[in-house]
């Protein structure tokens, strides 16, 4: 059992940036020649009507827009930001990491701590624990946690209809005396192949004897194509999420009914409805962004907060219970109290917004 209790830290605000381009699942399925009943059945089951997808905007493009907006809304001096972390599986490059690129694009101080975490569905909760650890000592006063993915295509059948592009940024700051965050984490690497991009790393690259061919092969072998064992993910989610809630509640003497909102990773409707039922919470307290965003991976919890809880949680204190779960297999649950949190208006970014920048 892995628990963390990090005090003297608070979430100051959250912002989300999305590509402006909307892709409707019904249109994609109709173009494949699917019948209306099949299309309605699929959309009913996964709960995803449309998603945001961009062919051009990367995670730092969207991150840049979200970051600028949130920094302005908070009224933070850029020079006061001591650390940035990005949680993504779709960095602009494998090297360097996105957090370094964002330090420059956002005009942050060169005295800035910057790193990426390569995680997906559980990534916001994990990222929050890392950034909170940096801030809670008061050494780093202000920090930005970027989460989410862009330009990813799963490319295998209907799995590609689940994921949407979005980058969120969560601003975290030192706040002496604040309750902070209480976490439970877990990992089951035996399910590593339940959600996997088999050709995304070094495991499945085949080296040829011939030096020249080795390099031409490498060039063609890396792929972000993902595969998923749907039934395994379903079984994992509906069993592990309630167990994680129970573990957190037992450890810290919490009760889920005392929370104003339960914000779950947005996997798909079949999984989320089932989890909400098993948790025995009022569905009205479990907001969802699936219908119009799809599964936005490490952004799904903050993007659900910015899209569904804007206007509901900014005043005073609100208690949130959030759980991320998925590829790894990996899961994390966090209990936190917001205190006059800033929720920025969601930013929609035009496809050609950054066309004038020349990148390597």
């Amino acid at each position: 059992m892995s628990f963390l209790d990090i005090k003297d830290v608070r979430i100051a605000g959250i912002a989300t940036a999305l590509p402006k381009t909307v892709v409707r699942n019904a249109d994609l399925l109709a173009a494949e020649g699917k019948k209306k009943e099949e299309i309605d059945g699929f959309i009913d089951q996964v709960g995803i009507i449309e998603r945001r997808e961009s062919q051009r905007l990367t995670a730092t493009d969207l991150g840049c827009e979200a970051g600028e907006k949130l920094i302005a809304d908070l009224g933070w001096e850029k020079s006061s930001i001591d650390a940035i972390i990005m949680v993504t599986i779709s960095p602009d490059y494998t090297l360097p990491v996105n957090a370094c690129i964002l330090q420059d694009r956002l005009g942050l101080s060169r005295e800035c701590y910057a790193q990426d975490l390569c995680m997906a569905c559980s990534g916001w909760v994990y990222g929050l624990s890392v950034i909170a650890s940096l801030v809670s000592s008061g050494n780093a006063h202000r920090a930005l946690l970027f989460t989410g993915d862009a330009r990813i295509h799963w490319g295998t059948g209907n799995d590609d209809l689940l994921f949407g592009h979005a980058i969120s940024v969560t601003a975290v700051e030192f706040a002496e005396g604040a309750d902070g965050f209480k976490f439970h984490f877990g990992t089951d690497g035996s399910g590593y192949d339940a959600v996997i991009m088999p050709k995304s790393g070094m495991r499945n690259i085949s080296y040829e004897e011939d030096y020249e061919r080795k390099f031409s092969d490498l060039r063609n072998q890396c792929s972000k194509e993902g595969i998923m064992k749907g039934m395994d993910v379903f079984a994992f989610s509906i069993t592990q999420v309630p167990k994680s809630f129970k573990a957190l509640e037992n450890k810290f003497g919490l009760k889920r009914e005392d929370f104003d909102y339960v914000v779950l990773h947005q996997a798909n409707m079949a999984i989320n409805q089932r989890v909400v039922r098993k948790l025995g919470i009022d569905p009205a307290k479990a907001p969802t962004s699936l219908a119009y965003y799809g599964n936005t991976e490490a952004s799904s919890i903050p993007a659900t907060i910015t899209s569904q809880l804007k206007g509901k949680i900014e005043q005073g204190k609100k208690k949130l219970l959030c759980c991320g779960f998925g590829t790894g297999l990996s899961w994390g649950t966090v209990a936190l109290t917001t205190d006059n949190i800033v929720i920025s208006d969601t930013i929609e970014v035009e496809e050609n917004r950054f066309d004038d920048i020349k990148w390597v």
Partner: protein
Amino acid sequence: MKTIDEFVALFAEQLDDTDPSTVTAQTKFRDLEEWSSLLALSLISMVDEEFDVALKGDDVKNSETIEDVYNVIKSKI
């Protein structure tokens, strides 16, 4: 643990278009006309709820009859 007959009855409850009286321990469930991935998820949910066992996709795919699924559950308890 529930008996095989109780499990067969629970299994039959998940089905919409199949007459429950025709469902037995020897029924090859994947040959049922209405069998679908959604029904597989219902089965996994039911097993989670009734037996506190997490079935894997392969457990369902590698089972032929309802009794085979029951035996997998038994082995995981």
